[in-house]
């Protein structure tokens, strides 16, 4: 065994070492790019109030697409919150995805809906829309109903019905900054080549919500949510802005993104896959190159969408497995891009970087850990070296997280209290002691699941909440999951208090794809 290690595994160990050096350098490059991008952006928006867009006659119109499935308890607040978004030409398109509860009835009674002839522009094939309703109170609210067919198909139906230049995809439990759309629309105004723009997603656990708006922005006080908050900061303040300069992003989170509607229609909209958000962006970019007009994907760091993250390891594990499956699926579907000069920077830089530094990272990290432990056990590697090597791996992880926290501190500082920010430092350290290794396992399982042909989203457990205590959660609503069919997200209102009610503290989870890659390490 010792001889085998020396003959075969030692060279592998060197490969792993070289890989880690490359990975560290890559992330430092990403950080440098992100820091430059952020600096320019902060200077650009200093003292900018975005007031002009509010009353502009030439601002592009936006349709917000809201897929809903069994959201009876929450849909009213969700839609009310969207109706209060400050944007001049806004349309809200809610599509009920075959709810078996009273979602549609609640919408009809609350917003005074009346049915109209269900004719619309069927640009993308979907399950038929069975009814379309308009509101007497809110002319810009459209509600449609169809049989259940999953989130992607429902979004495509909404896309068919929408009539604006831009469409905004939202996870139903996302809370937007009121001026988020005004900020996010800027890249589209700037260049006609921009086909999509993504924004920052932040962890809402620990924050308080009132009337559908974020009342206080606090950092999570629980380890699991806190560590995820650090991951999100790393992904959205470090990874995405970094890619803005290095060749463009490959992912816009499904939780909050703005797309050029015509581009979506030309590329057949959303695909039924567990990673539909990333797949869509890759397809948009690919289509751009294939039609001779490279399509730009922009990331804007300061419009924020707040979302809850899983608070239980098991749910988190399922989420990360699913992300990795979706990620693998997308890379496989678009494998033709890999080092293909026809696709320019996308094929030669961005796509390979995602394969090497994002998709392969858990595999190599797992191999590295096993080899070091094995080497130490066989006496080939001294225990001191093994410990030092492990410390180095953790140190680099901590350094990357700290760099993200530094960017946050020097830029937006949305988690207002110093105590919250200090806690983030603690979570950044703790992340490397167990959590990071767990994510490696989850991501590997995701790859294995994909190779095994698993296509479902897995069972998702949802909670409601009542109290103002972070510790308290209320109802555990079992999922209505149908195997093989993506489960639409919970409603916005799950995070919101009814009008007049006291602010509520979030304590629940939801599924939001945070990054292009499972552990969101920098990406």
């Amino acid at each position, binding site marked *: 065994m010792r001889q085998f290690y020396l003959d075969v595994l030692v060279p592998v160990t060197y490969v792993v070492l070289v890989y880690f050096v490359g990975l560290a350098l890559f992330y430092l490059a990403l950080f440098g790019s992100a820091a430059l991008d952020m600096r320019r952006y902060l*200077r*650009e928006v*200093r*003292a*900018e*109030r975005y*007031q*002009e867009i509010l009353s*502009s*006659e*030439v601002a592009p119109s936006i349709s917000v697409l809201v897929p809903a499935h069994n959201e009876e308890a929450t849909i009213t607040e969700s839609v009310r919150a969207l109706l209060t978004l400050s944007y001049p030409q806004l349309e809200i398109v809610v599509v009920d995805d075959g709810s078996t509860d009273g979602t549609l009835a609640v919408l009809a009674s609350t917003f005074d809906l*009346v*049915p*109209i*002839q269900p*004719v*619309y*522009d*069927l640009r993308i094939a979907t399950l038929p829309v069975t009814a379309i309703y*308009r509101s*007497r109170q809110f002319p810009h609210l459209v509600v449609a109903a169809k049989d259940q067919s999953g989130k992607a198909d429902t979004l495509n139906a909404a896309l068919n019905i929408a009539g604006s230049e831009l469409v905004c995809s939202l996870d139903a439990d996302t809370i937007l900054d009121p001026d988020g759309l005004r900020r996010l629309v*800027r890249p589209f*105004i*700037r*260049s*006609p080549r921009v086909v999509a723009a993504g924004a920052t997603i932040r962890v809402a656990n620990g924050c308080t919500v009132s009337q559908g708006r974020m009342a206080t922005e606090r950092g999570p006080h629980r380890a699991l949510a806190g560590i995820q908050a650090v991951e999100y900061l790393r992904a959205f303040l470090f990874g995405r802005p970094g890619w803005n300069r290095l060749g463009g992003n490959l992912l816009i989170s499904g939780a909050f993104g703005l797309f050029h509607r015509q581009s979506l229609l030309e590329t057949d909209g959303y695909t039924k896959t567990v990673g539909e958000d990333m797949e869509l962006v890759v397809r948009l970019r690919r289509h751009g190159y294939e039609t001779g007009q490279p399509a730009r994907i922009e990331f804007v760091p300061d419009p924020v969408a707040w979302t809850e993250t899983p608070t239980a390891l098991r749910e988190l594990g399922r989420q990360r497995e699913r992300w990795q499956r979706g990620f693998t699926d997308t890379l496989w579907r678009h494998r033709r891009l890999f080092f293909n000069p026809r696709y320019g920077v996308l094929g030669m830089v961005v796509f390979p970087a995602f394969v090497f530094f994002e998709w392969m990272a858990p595999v190599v990290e797992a191999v590295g850990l096993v080899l070091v432990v094995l080497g130490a056990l066989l006496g080939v590697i*001294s225990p*001191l*070296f093994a410990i*030092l*090597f492990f*410390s*180095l791996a953790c*140190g*680099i992880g*901590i*350094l990357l997280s*700290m*760099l993200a*926290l*530094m960017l946050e*501190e*020097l830029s937006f*500082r949305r988690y207002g209290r*110093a105590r919250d*920010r*200090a806690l983030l*430092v603690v979570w950044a350290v703790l992340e490397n002691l167990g959590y990071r290794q767990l994510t490696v396992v989850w991501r590997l399982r995701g790859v294995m699941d994909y190779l095994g042909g698993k296509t479902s989203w897995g069972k998702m457990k949802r909670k409601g909440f009542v109290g103002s205590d972070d510790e308290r959660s209320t109802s555990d609503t079992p999922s209505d999951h149908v195997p093989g069919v993506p489960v639409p997200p919970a409603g916005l209102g799950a995070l919101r208090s009814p009008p007049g009610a006291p602010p509520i503290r979030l304590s629940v989870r939801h599924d939001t794809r945070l990054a292009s890659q499972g552990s969101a390490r920098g990406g």
Partner: protein
Amino acid sequence: MSPVDLVVVTLIVVGAGICAVLTTVAVSSLIQMHRVRREPRLAAVRQAVVVALSGPDDPGPGAFTGLSRSTRRYVSAVLLELAPSVNGTSRMVLNTLGERVGMLGRARRGIRSRRWSTRLYSARVLTALGVESDALVGLFDDTAPEVRAQAATWAVATPSPGAVAGLVGLLGDTDGLCRFAAQDALIRIGLPAFRALLDALASADDDVTGHILEIAAAGGDGRFAGPATDLCGHVAPRLRARAASALARTGDPAAGPVLVGLLDDPSHEVVLAAASGLAQLSYWPGAAEVEPLLSRPSWEVRRQAGLTLLALGDPGTVLLWANAPGDGQAADMSIQALQLRSLAAGGAPV
């Protein structure tokens, strides 16, 4: 160097990096905490400014006691915060305060800075407070597109002939943000800008012509009727469509027949614009020509036809009712349009 030494050295470097980053974070946090402790002073500044705003036109030096003790940063923040909410006399008071604390002086110097970010921020300060400056015109040629766009926004408050000319020039800018800001500014300026736009139309290229027509469509000045009518025959469908929109918005008596003529245009973009224009004009004599559009293959054209007939009053409604009993696309769209009509009227659905 042995592998262990190499790892140790790397570890030390990484550790030092972590310490440096942590120190930066800690120092920044401490500065922030210090600012938060001074928050009551900020409240006092805000109060002093509001008191000054509610006082006489020139509150005198006494009113600035609180301000003079505050930092410039805070004062600037307060003034910028309040500026969009006030105008008239209050704006003048605010400007006086800005002058006395040196904020406007710095901004005037700042727009000549070598750093684009300083020029941009200074222009934003001057825009927020509506200050006039000869330097504005120079900013239209700035190397930074953000600054040019800000200059366009600034020009709304001070639409001198030079500024309007600069705005018209920005319509051909390579940066979309500048074009957007210029279009928006020219729409807001309105009448004083239209003469310059009409002059520009004579020599503009297709892109700029399109932007001018968009402004005309938003502005609705009758003087655009002639050029828009001419451009309805332009070779580019995009320009014909925009010309149709602009022409409709002028409300010119001759516009209806021109737009009816465009309903047979081979470009569905032009047909859409013409139908939409007829709706804006409520040109009911064109109803019979709009009706066939209900059967067009393009969903957008069918939809616009339904909406247009709806807007044409009784003649259009009669045609919608006539089409409703059928079984095809025209019937579907007619029913939907009639339902929208009853919805708008607050009645029961058809």
